[in-house]
């Protein structure tokens, strides 16, 4: 398996080659100079290199070993290191939910955690929920109900939605749960509140709630 360092080198080699073809020497030289910091995560500005660290975790059922700059977020490790581009970077600050993945059975924002913090962890991304031939029921419901327009927020919405139904099933209350000691309801108010960490700039919210409701076994 390619380490992110190898991938970075490949990508940069390609970039330099492309620029060279365009015969813009000065730019090619600058592109070359960017290869100096080893395996710096894409969101990190070049600085004094910190030594890389090894981390192993499972992604979508496959064991993965990475050698990373400690600054690499889980999001960047998935996208840049493992080429799993389904998980999206929106805000990179925990505000939009585009980067939602399921870590050890729980949904989290992969942009606000470091990859090296998850030694032995089990991560599920949108790519691990279903395949184009065999969609996860939540993926199929999003398609059926038009739970998106541009689709950028969708992987995060779907990972979040799958976990939301498990949270309700486990009896975890929410801000709108009237009785903290009773099993939470499966109504629109609960789904909307629980999905509030996933922003959709296209405003597909009502269709998203319908899709989740259908998977939850409610009349859509």
């Amino acid at each position, binding site marked *: 398996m390619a380490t992110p360092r190898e991938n970075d080198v490949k990508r940069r080699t390609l970039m330099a080659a492309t620029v060279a073809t365009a015969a813009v020497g000065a730019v090619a030289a600058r592109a070359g100079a960017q290869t100096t910091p080893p395996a710096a995560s894409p*969101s990190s500005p070049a600085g004094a290199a910190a030594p890389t660290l090894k981390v192993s975790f499972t992604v979508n059922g496959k064991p993965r070993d990475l050698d990373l700059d400690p600054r690499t977020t889980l999001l960047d490790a998935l996208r840049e290191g493992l080429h799993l581009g389904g998980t999206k970077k929106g805000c990179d600050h925990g505000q939009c939910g585009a980067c*939602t993945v399921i870590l050890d059975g729980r*949904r989290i*924002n992969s942009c606000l955690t*470091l990859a090296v913090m998850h030694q032995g962890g089990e991560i599920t991304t949108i790519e691990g929920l279903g395949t184009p031939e065999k969609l996860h029921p939540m993926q199929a419901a999003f398609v059926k109900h038009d739970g998106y327009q541009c689709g950028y927020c969708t992987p995060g919405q779907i990972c*979040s939605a799958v976990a939301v139904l498990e949270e309700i099933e486990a009896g*975890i*209350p929410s801000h709108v749960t009237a009785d903290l000691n009773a099993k939470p309801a499966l109504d629109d108010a609960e789904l909307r*509140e629980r999905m509030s960490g*996933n922003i959709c700039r296209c405003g597909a919210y009502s269709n998203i709630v319908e899709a989740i409701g259908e998977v939850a076994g409610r009349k859509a």
Partner: protein
Amino acid sequence: MKPFTYERAASPAEAASAAARQPDARFIAGGTNLLDLMKLQIETPAHLIDVNGLGLDKVEPTQDGGLRVGALVRNTDLAADARVRRDYAVLSRALLSGASGQLRNRATTAGNLLQRTRCPYFYDTNMACNKRRPGSGCSALGGYSRQLAVVGGSDACIATHPSDMAVAMRVLDATVETVKPQGATRTIPIADFHRLPGDTPEIETVLERGELITAVTLPKPAGGTHHYRKVRDRASYAFALVSVAAIVQPDGSGRVALGGVAPKPWRSEDAEAEMSRGAKPVMAKLLAGAKPTEENKFKVPLAERALAAVLAEPRG
């Protein structure tokens, strides 16, 4: 992010001594506040000590009928704990009103107490801010101050403490347990844990260098009806403009603490003596000495009305 080295601590005491040994070391728990600030280079630690593996993730009964909440208990787990839901509902409610499901799954008890202000100038590294760069001035005084403190601030800083959980912890009289680098432990009443800004707004708590929070302890249940009422610009996923944590007893007496109005959860015992007489006399005492700005003076009547709404609810 600036480069840093990273280690996983092996025990709470070792984490504390490692933090004291390394210059510019920080603990990392959920990372949801620290990494956010590191990406903006507002926080620039040279070394991170991961405290996730220390086994501080349990909620256990105490000898005197209370609960001891490990520093690494996630906000989701604390809110969902059956004992907390039953006996400390104000805490469940406060936690559930904060952040998002994804964030609460990572955010920890200690990290939540230590999260930093959401003052927009603290976040904007181009602006003067005494909390971020001591001595540079405060852009909020005379600037955009709608979200900021109306009471407890100083001429150096009027930032609020953004935590919802901390307001509930304050109304419950929680105690913070810590271990210091030399291995000594201590307990700090939540009332004394956060500091007012004075001329040193960069110092936010009484924690010493390297001191690690190991747990937050709740005394035995206070009974009564528990409320957490949070007023904000959106119905969900937004910080409080004003929040009210209250425990109301059947006879109308009780406790109240405010969030969103001060640099720390805001509570006073002599204001509580007025509880059975209604929201107005309580707020007259609790917010006596308030120095709101033109932009945030709405918080004073808002707090009073939020408490009035709480007091109008049925008592159990």
